[in-house]
């Protein structure tokens, strides 16, 4: 979508201000990070739920902690995704998704990871579609399995919903047979959690990118939440390491532990225990309500949420500066071994 924009003056806002200013009922939103492990904008979604916004059209490469929370509070109306589960540490199933899918509270358009990634890439590049080879013959491309078509959402009235789920086409250039054309994804608001942002918007992360590089440009408005705002000058000493150029950023929110219970490489680890507890709570409506009252609606603000988590819990997530994760975190039955060099490398090199 070629749409001309003026240079964005990046503004620095509080969590409350940013949610209030940018969110609205029915917004088409997308979150950065990966499933329930890496850099989900948890605090932003937490505040969004508290402020009562609803009826979202969520487009996301894979679900995770943030979509789990939105579903648990019935805030999603339309969802385009490739994975509707959550937390791999809890068996991947989201009971609320299953319920709301069956009751048709949520209408979905369903692709695969590769397909959604390509769709975001097309969105970032401003082209309306992109070819993709993945999952030929799957029921993902069964015309009868298109809920948007069934619900008459593909009538062209909603500029964020493509008129077709996909098209098949013969390659006219190299004679390589049939492939799919997939429509671009163009969320209105993307929220990405990063460790560090410069005060004019330049930002970076370490570890996996997920589809964040594409989200930055596929959206109309980009909000960064971050662990720390640093001077723009500091960020620019090594520009090769910055994935987010300043001109793309609308607002920055400094929010420590803003991805909890998911992790931020080199800042803190994921809180598997916390998510296992929520998952248990989510098995009944009352359980979930009690959990939400305690952890989402209870605390006065994000600072109070952190206080409630307590020092011991947060300290337990402290990472090693060499590996970017906690070498001590208890995740299974047994404490992690005290290894400082990969054994596969010791044994046979790279």
């Amino acid at each position, binding site marked *: 979508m070629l749409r001309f924009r003026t240079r964005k003056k990046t503004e620095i806002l509080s969590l409350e201000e940013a949610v209030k200013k940018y969110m609205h009922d029915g917004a088409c939103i997308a979150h950065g990070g990966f499933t329930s492990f890496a850099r989900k904008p948890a605090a932003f979604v937490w505040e969004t739920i508290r402020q009562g916004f609803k009826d979202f059209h969520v487009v996301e490469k894979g679900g995770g902690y943030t979509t789990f929370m939105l579903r648990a509070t019935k805030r999603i109306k339309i969802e385009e995704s490739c994975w509707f589960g959550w937390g791999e540490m809890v068996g991947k199933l989201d009971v609320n998704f299953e319920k709301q899918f069956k009751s048709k509270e949520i209408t979905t358009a369903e692709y695969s990871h590769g397909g959604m*990634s390509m769709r975001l890439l097309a969105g970032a590049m401003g082209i309306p579609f992109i070819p993709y080879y*993945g999952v030929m013959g799957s029921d993902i491309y069964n015309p009868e399995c298109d809920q948007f078509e069934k619900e008459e959402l593909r009538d062209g009235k909603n500029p964020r919903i493509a008129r077709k789920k996909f098209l098949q086409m013969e390659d006219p250039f190299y004679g390589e047979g049939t492939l799919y054309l997939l429509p671009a994804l163009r969320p209105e608001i993307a929220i990405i959690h990063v460790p560090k942002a410069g005060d004019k918007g330049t930002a970076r992360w370490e570890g996996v990118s997920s589809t964040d590089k594409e989200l930055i440009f596929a959206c109309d408005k980009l909000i960064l939440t971050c662990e720390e705002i640093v001077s723009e000058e500091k960020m620019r000493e090594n520009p090769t390491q910055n994935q987010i150029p300043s001109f793309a950023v609308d607002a920055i929110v400094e929010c420590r532990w803003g991805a909890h219970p998911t992790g931020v490489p080199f800042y803190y680890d994921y809180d598997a225990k916390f998510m296992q507890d929520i998952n248990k709570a989510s098995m009944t409506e009352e359980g979930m309500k009690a959990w939400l009252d305690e952890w989402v609606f209870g605390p006065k603000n994000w600072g109070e949420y952190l206080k409630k988590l307590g020092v011991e819990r947060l300290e337990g997530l402290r990472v090693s500066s060499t590996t970017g994760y906690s070498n001590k975190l208890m995740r299974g039955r047994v404490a992690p071994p005290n290894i400082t060099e990969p054994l596969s490398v*010791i044994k046979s090199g790279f």
Partner: protein
Amino acid sequence: MKKSGEELIKLIDIIPDESAKEGEYGLIELASIADSREVRNDDIVFAGTGLPMLGMMTANMLHAPNATLIFEAGIVDGKSMHIPMSVSDQRACYMASSLGGLVDIFGTYLQSGFVTLGFLGGAAIDKYGGTNATCIGDYHNPQHRFPGSGGAGDIGSLSARIVYFIIQEKRRFVEKNEFTTTVGWWCNDWKTGKWRPKKEIYRDTIFADTGPSAVITNMAVFRFDDSGIMYLDTVHPGVTVEQVKENCGFELNVSMVSGETTSPTYKELFILREVVDPEGIFLPIAPEYPSDIKEIIEKA
């Protein structure tokens, strides 16, 4: 058992390469090791979360040190010291060759044919090797609704070979999936709506030849015949062909059984338990080592 890295390495060398006996290993362990044997040293392996990781990491410590592991969140050839709980776990990034994102992994490496082995778990598979991660019942009004494809669909259609790890249950081994998430050797030709062999639909393209190569369960190893139908290849030690048939929801071809699945060796079990998943994240509690092996370990 608390051993240092060096002690573990030394033990790998001295623990015997002999077959363990029934009862000395769990079936998940046996299956993980069977999984690991599917990895070749020159493979580029795209692995999903969970048991596929175990197989790949075991292979890396043994016969396939140069096999390259990629994970969908963007990780290439990480050298984990602690097993990741997910394909985006920072533990998987340690000493990686490069870190990118899904467009790199799916759009580029997978789609341009670098991946020689897709290593997947699955909830249900049909006799054509297609898997269903989406729903039971009508798509719009399902009895059960699962998370959907994730990366499995892509990996399962764009890797040269695909190996599945699936729990052996009647309801998981079905005649034909109600929803095909990842295609097997037969699939719908959407131009005609007909269920046909993939080799015919995609004749003269590379997709004609990509597909499931093996299915490994806690009871057996399955492969596919020329017509793209699953058959029983080996049964795990202590498991009978009859038992496998009882736990399979379709009429299983057992005419080509080649024998028993090779038992894991003590060395393999040691690597799997003490090096790959010593935290017990994916592995259940293991049977004890026999006394001679225990002695070797304790002496080190």
